[in-house]
């Protein structure tokens, strides 16, 4: 009898795509579909001082609101549709709900309410949806999309949707609203939900320096493997990990990728909160200009999405197997930009 195959277990797959572009070719199109960003890190080599105005870029006017036990039926009220969905970009995301175990909801800035529902909830709520990509075999999760922008109050579909949403239960959510008209204050949305337990949330900011490290110089002809090594090095810097390892070391054999130079310091700036694609684009714009003026060896930005968001980019569905990673890395060097996308794999696990 053959021995059981206990030695060939494959790791959960993931995807990491690298695209090399001209820095000037990066536009809002590269950001706008990545709806919800949670953590943003910026890496600046050989910089003793924090780039001017940069820390406040993702603090000022980046507040959002946390609403407890929101009844989703309120999102389809005629007043709400006319005042907020049609007159601005609403971003809303459920928190404290796990995409692999609970019902989750989100409203994307293009006006779509996306619900990721468990089988029982889906079958009892009466909304039309489709089975989740990740549970095609056992069909225990369903995705429902309601286009709020096209919902017409007074029509039968509106009434039916409102009744179904009412039956879904309540969600703790975070939300922000960006009006099309500058004279309207984004805090108007908080006023609308004043009957709820609502809290203003501010992003958090943290900064640290890593001193005397060997930093990769990154050739302009860097291939995918070079970029992967570079991104790993960024990870080492972001975690302030141990750079003293070498091939002879028992505990840690990590060495900085080559070619590298001795760097006096690398500054890491980290923000956490609830960011829209426009806010991320603004920071990228700032870094692009900063890089042109300061002529740094390179500058990098890392953007991480929410692990439990029903959608990642556009309508791409999110899954949580061993992790819910959905991140983008931007590396600016002179006129070039490497744009890396990391996602958990779309493989269906049984």
């Amino acid at each position, binding site marked *: 009898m053959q021995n059981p195959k206990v030695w060939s277990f494959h790791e959960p797959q993931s*995807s*990491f795509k690298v695209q090399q572009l001209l820095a000037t070719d990066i536009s809002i199109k590269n950001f706008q579909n990545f709806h919800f960003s949670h*953590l943003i890190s910026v890496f600046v080599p050989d910089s003793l001082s924090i780039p001017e105005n940069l820390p406040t870029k993702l603090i000022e006017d980046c507040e*959002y609101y946390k609403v407890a036990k929101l009844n989703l039926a309120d999102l389809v009220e005629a007043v709400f549709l006319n005042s907020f969905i049609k007159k601005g970009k609403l971003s809303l995301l459920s928190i404290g709900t796990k995409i692999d175990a609970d019902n989750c909801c989100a409203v994307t800035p293009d006006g779509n309410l996306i619900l990721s529902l468990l089988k029982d909830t889906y079958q009892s709520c009466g909304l039309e949806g489709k089975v989740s990509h990740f549970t095609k075999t056992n069909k225990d999760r369903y995705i429902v999309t309601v286009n709020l922008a096209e919902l017409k109050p007074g029509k039968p579909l509106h009434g039916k949707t409102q009744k179904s949403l009412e039956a879904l239960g309540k969600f703790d959510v975070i939300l922000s609203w960006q009006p099309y008209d500058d004279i309207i204050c984004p805090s108007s949305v908080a006023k609308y939900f004043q009957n709820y337990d609502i809290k203003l949330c501010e992003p958090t900011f943290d900064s640290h320096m890593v001193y005397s490290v060997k930093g990769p110089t990154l050739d302009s002809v860097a291939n995918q493997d070079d970029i*992967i090594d570079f991104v790993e090095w960024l*990870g080492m810097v972001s975690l302030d990990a141990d750079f003293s390892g070498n091939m002879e070391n028992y505990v840690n054999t990590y060495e900085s990728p080559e070619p590298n130079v001795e760097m006096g310091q690398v500054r890491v700036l980290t923000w956490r909160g609830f960011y829209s694609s426009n806010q991320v684009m603004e920071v990228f714009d700032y870094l692009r200009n900063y890089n042109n003026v300061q002529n740094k060896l390179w500058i990098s930005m890392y953007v991480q999405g929410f692990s439990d968001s029903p959608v990642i980019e556009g309508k791409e569905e999110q899954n949580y197997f061993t*992790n819910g*990673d959905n991140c983008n890395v931007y590396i600016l060097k002179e006129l070039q930009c490497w744009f890396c996308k990391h996602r958990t794999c779309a493989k269906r696990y049984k």
Partner: protein
Amino acid sequence: MSNYYYLDIKLILANPEEVTPAFYKKNILEAVKQLFGETGASIPIDILKFNSETLEAILRVPKSHYIKIRSSLVLSGKYEGIRCIYSIQKSTPLLLALQGDSRNYNH
């Protein structure tokens, strides 16, 4: 994609005592050896970051051995004769992603 997987783990001891990174790694290798034999003990594991107070560590393991190491950690119950468990806080193929997780963030 990267050839590695990264694990953010924490060693919880029944009777707390001082642990050095070398002994931490030795115990992980012993756990792998116990479950998968001598060949398992030759897997190159790196401790990229170690906190001696909380006994938290960030491990880098070859992705082809990720499942074996994770299962060994889950089943490991002894550290130098003391009862212990390994809590796996996050695992990812992207080291940058260990900076934080929206699941544990308080808004």
